[in-house]
């Protein structure tokens, strides 16, 4: 018999409270936290009588999942499971954000969760929890009636204008939620690098090594080492910061401009390594495929990371 628990948002968190009630079929608490079962996932499993599983290294079929525990600071992952209407517990205090923000709602998602936010649920709370995809609100009425030409043209124009307007709205939201915050953060780093003289230190020490083909091959190989690459991945934050530092060195003349191309691949050998099981489940992969796919991608990068740098180096001949 499985018990229900009530999970509330933690300090600075958002959403919830969620009632997690595993059943005989849905009896897995899946931890997608970059390898291993997080203690929070284990605690939820212990309190409910469910089984905790590591969703990073082993694939778990979606129809067995009672809840997912993630640690996502606001990139793609925090929306993936809410989109599938799987109850999602985020250890980071992240609100609705990322490209899938619209799927992150209070009835399916709770964030900033600590161990003390998990409590046994009352009997009345567990009654009547339904987690189905919301029914689309608009029901088509009057379809099939013939419309005159003017009405049809009018509707057609309206639909196109509506699409353009929605595109504009999506774009502005993207700029405000993602691009501007990153520009602010990176501007701060650049200010500190330029103003403190750190840039000169980097130019004298690291750039000579990083600004050569062997140096870049070594960097790509290090980024691709299977236990390092998933850590470097999330949100491409590290790749972006390193990209800015390399750009600064190009501007200073410490690195040749033509080397920009191989550098782009050298600093990005780890791209998406943190996201493999989630990406595969978006592609509706079977659990066995995920189990084989995670090591396959991770090891492949050790080979293809340096190869990418070499190809880019060849293509950089004649650039600038």
């Amino acid at each position, binding site marked *: 018999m499985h018990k229900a628990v009530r999970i509330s948002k933690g300090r600075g968190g958002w959403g919830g409270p969620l009632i997690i009630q595993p059943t005989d079929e849905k009896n897995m608490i899946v931890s997608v936290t970059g390898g291993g079962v997080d203690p929070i996932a284990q605690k939820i499993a212990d309190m409910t009588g469910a089984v905790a599983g590591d969703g990073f290294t082993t694939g778990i079929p979606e129809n067995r999942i009672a809840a997912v525990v993630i640690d996502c600071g606001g990139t793609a992952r925090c929306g993936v499971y809410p989109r599938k209407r799987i109850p999602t517990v985020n250890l980071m205090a992240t609100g609705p954000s990322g490209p899938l923000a619209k799927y992150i709602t209070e009835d399916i998602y709770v964030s900033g969760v600590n161990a003390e936010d998990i409590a046994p649920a009352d009997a009345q709370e567990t009654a009547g929890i339904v987690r189905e995809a919301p029914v689309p609100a608009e029901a088509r009425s009057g379809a099939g009636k013939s419309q005159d030409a003017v009405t049809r043209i009018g509707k057609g124009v309206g639909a196109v204008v509506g699409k353009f307007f929605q*595109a504009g709205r999506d774009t502005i939201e*993207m700029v405000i939620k993602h691009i501007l915050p990153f520009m602010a953060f990176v501007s701060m780093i650049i200010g500190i690098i330029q103003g403190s003289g750190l840039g000169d230190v980097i130019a004298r020490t690291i750039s000579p090594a990083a600004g050569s083909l062997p140096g870049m091959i070594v960097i790509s190989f290090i980024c691709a080492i299977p236990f390092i690459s998933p850590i470097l991945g999330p949100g491409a934050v590290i790749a972006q910061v390193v990209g800015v530092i390399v750009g600064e060195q190009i501007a200073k003349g410490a690195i040749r401009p033509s080397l920009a191309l191989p*550098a*782009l691949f050298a600093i990005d050998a780890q*791209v998406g390594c943190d996201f493999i099981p989630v990406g595969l489940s978006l*592609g509706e*992969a079977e659990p066995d495929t995920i189990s084989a796919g995670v090591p396959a991608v991770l090891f492949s990068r050790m080979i293809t990371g340096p190869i*990418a740098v070499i190809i880019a180096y060849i293509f950089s001949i004649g650039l600038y």
Partner: protein
Amino acid sequence: MDYLAKLAEGFINLFNLGGATFLSWVTGIIPTLVVLITFVNALISIIGEERMDGFAKACGKFFLLRYTVVPVIAMFVLCNPMAYTFGRFVEEKHKPAFYDAAVSFCHPITGLFPHANAGELFVYLGIANGITALGLSLSPLAVRYFIVGVIVILIRGIVTERLTLRFMKKGEG
């Protein structure tokens, strides 16, 4: 006293420099970016994502297209991270290789089509800013980044496909 004043000046100077950088980006990068992304978003929503499905399914059968055309179109139309849902159009044993190819294209595409991964622009923009600072044109870099990106994802697809088959066999035995 002088020393303290110098220190304060140095401290605020860090943020003045950062502020100047921020301003140059907001006025130099954002306006074109906003209009471009709006255009492409509208185009994609008018074409409709469903229409790409049949095309992707047909291309998924051939390895040359599976790790080049399909991930590029997926990333262009669906963007990061929904591009990976195109994995459903390829065979089970090819899914990890397809994911590897698609995710490896989420930055090379941003040089020409920033809408595809607008949240992670600075992998490219960070380095590209150095080129701009030297007064050089970005177009050659963006085009080559795209082309090399396609070659690299093809190689990644092939290597990862081999490794996946090997790990799958190991799992059985």
